[in-house]
């Protein structure tokens, strides 16, 4: 939607606006987290919300992630719609048991009688020069847990739209915020946010004919840059932004890969048993006869996240993506 009030908005601001609008529209929405009240969160995503909605709607909790998610589960059992903030990816691990054993299963356990309409916001990924425990890409753990939706925006419009959808969802959503994109900007009208496709739908960010890059979250700008660069080498690369890792949009991904016959999956998370392994397998199962080359992966190494001065050796970059594209058996 174009509008006269369109202006430059950061992804962080879009997230804040989504939380604000959700709080304003639905009295059952409650934010819980560490330092999200007075401080507005370490990334300032909740800035001003405690002042506007009070300390119970945007609550600073005791410092205990299992307790935060555990009590949020109880609040959801009573019909509230909690939105939990985990301060950093690696600090969400204490809440893992509550997430896996209860949040993901409560609906199923009770044959639908007790849904879990809660959202768990987690800043994730590297590239910000963070010291250990501040740069993990933990999406594979969540993807491997049936009962959860796993969502990750890469654009300003999606940051707003997907977060609103996540909060409105009657299922639990792990909402992964690419922290290195918090400060990325786009021109939108914050008072008239554009409609975005629903959860579970991937979007073709760039059509291409030579090969398809499949990516999400922090790696989307990287893939778009790689596609730009590839033009100089005669490749017309398409880019698919998954947006939602669970449920996975087989239809959009396969339609693209069937057209190009070549695919590279790009993410920061470790490659072994990572999201790319599942995606490559799905493509192979569904598009085998359309493939001109094996599906390749450009991922982080199979190592604990490196210290900040070494992270550039770990993170996928355009050179690595183009190397992979070059290996897509163009001669045969």
């Amino acid at each position, binding site marked *: 939607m174009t509008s006269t009030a369109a202006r430059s908005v950061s992804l962080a601001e879009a997230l804040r606006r989504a939380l604000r609008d959700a709080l304003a529209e639905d009295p059952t929405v409650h934010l819980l987290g560490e330092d999200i009240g007075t401080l507005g969160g370490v990334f300032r995503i909740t800035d001003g919300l405690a002042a506007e909605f009070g300390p119970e709607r945007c609550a600073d909790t005791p410092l205990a992630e299992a307790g935060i998610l*555990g*009590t949020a589960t*109880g609040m959801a*059992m009573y019909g509230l719609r909690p939105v939990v903030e985990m301060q950093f990816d690696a600090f969400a691990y*204490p809440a893992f048991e*509550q997430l896996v054993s209860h949040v993901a299963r409560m609906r199923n356990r009770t044959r639908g009688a007790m849904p879990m309409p809660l959202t768990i916001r987690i800043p994730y990924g590297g590239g910000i020069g963070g010291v250990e425990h501040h740069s993990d890409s933990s999406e594979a753990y969540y993807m491997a847990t049936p*009962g959860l939706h796993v969502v990750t925006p890469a654009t300003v419009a999606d940051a707003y739209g997907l977060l609103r959808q996540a909060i409105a969802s009657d299922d639990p959503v792990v909402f992964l915020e690419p922290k290195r994109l918090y400060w990325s900007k786009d021109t939108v009208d914050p008072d008239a946010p554009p409609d975005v496709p629903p959860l579970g739908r991937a979007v073709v960010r760039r059509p291409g004919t030579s090969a398809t890059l499949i990516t999400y979250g922090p790696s989307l700008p990287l893939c778009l840059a790689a596609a730009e660069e590839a033009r100089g080498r005669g490749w017309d690369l398409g880019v698919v932004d998954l947006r939602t890792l669970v449920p996975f949009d087989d239809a959009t991904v396969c339609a693209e890969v069937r057209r190009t016959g070549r695919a590279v999956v790009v993410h920061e998370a470790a490659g072994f048993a990572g999201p790319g392994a599942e995606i490559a397998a799905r493509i192979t199962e569904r598009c085998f006869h359309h493939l001109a080359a094996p599906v390749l992966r450009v991922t982080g190494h199979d190592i604990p996240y490196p210290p900040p001065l070494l992270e550039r050796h770990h993170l996928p970059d355009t050179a690595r993506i183009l190397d992979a594209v070059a290996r897509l058996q163009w001669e045969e």
Partner: protein
Amino acid sequence: MTVLHEPPTPSPTTGQAPVPPWRRPPRTDPAPLLPETEPYHRLGTDREPPEGPDRALWRTLHRHLVLGRRYNQQATALTRQGRLAVYPSSTGQEACQIAAALVLAEQDWLFPSYRDTLATVARGLDPVAALGLLRGDWHTGYDPHTHRIAPLATPLATQLPHAVGLAHAARLKGDDVVALAMVGDGGTSEGDFHEALNFAAVWQAPVVFLVQNNGFAISVPLARQTAAPTIAHKAVGYGMPGRLVDGNDAPAVYEVLADAVRRARAGGGPTLVEALTYRLDAHTNADDATRYREDAEVAAWREHDPLPLLTGALERHGLLDEDHARQARDAAEELAAGMRARLNAEPVLDPDDLFAHVYARPTPQLTEQAARLRQEAAAR
């Protein structure tokens, strides 16, 4: 009172003493924080049973104990016959089970663990629906909202933060709801126990934590779980009262829990109650308790069995007439017969259910898998 921090000195420039952020206003709460180290008793003491409606309460507790004992026996027998996958019996702990259920008002919520099926039945849940998890036809055999009973929790202590969150949510909405959460002595070592109690106290949530201390976590005795003088003492560190009670003394457990529920309802915040009890059966039907405890110890606890204890007290006070005893016995046999009849029937199972409730709407992947399973079933 011990002063933990020296009072700060006034600043020479402003004349004001800085207020350290860690200093909190003094408690106005009159409840004593240090628990009594002797458990609270009612039976076996010289105290007379209460007059008025409480007199009827003793008989009600007794009737439920008779039914509860029979329930445990019948469920154990059905497990031996292969009708339940497993049964963690609460034989010997019925006083806690019954009191926890009866002390709550209709709008309150109960958060049971795997051992607390009986508490759910005493609260009014269908006795067979209560066994869904243990029968194995579904993870939870009932809609939690009908009796306000959370699903039986298997991962230890993980239900405690749920109780806190639910009670907190109810208070935010302005509803008069108390949550009572049950956990074992072993469960108090879990991190979730700590986090739940801390959240409850900080939020002053209307929650009652009932620890059934039966001395063992499967085979591991309490001394290997904690070095605290009692589990009730742990309450002190969270800033809530802790109470120790003889968990086999049904009226005593009821009274202590009722106090705690009243306190929570009146906005006084959470209470930790430790009930000293003993499981007379093995951990489950699959356990061999002789590997970790002496027969003599079990025999000693049989002498302190909650059922004869209350029967004796009622008799001493002339409150146990033949009518009451017969009615309780008959109701217990009827309960057991109903369990046998219904649990001996084959459960109705539908593999489609496996995919139906994972999400609000099945994902395309689950729809595909469900269709494949149906095809497999049709081909066999």
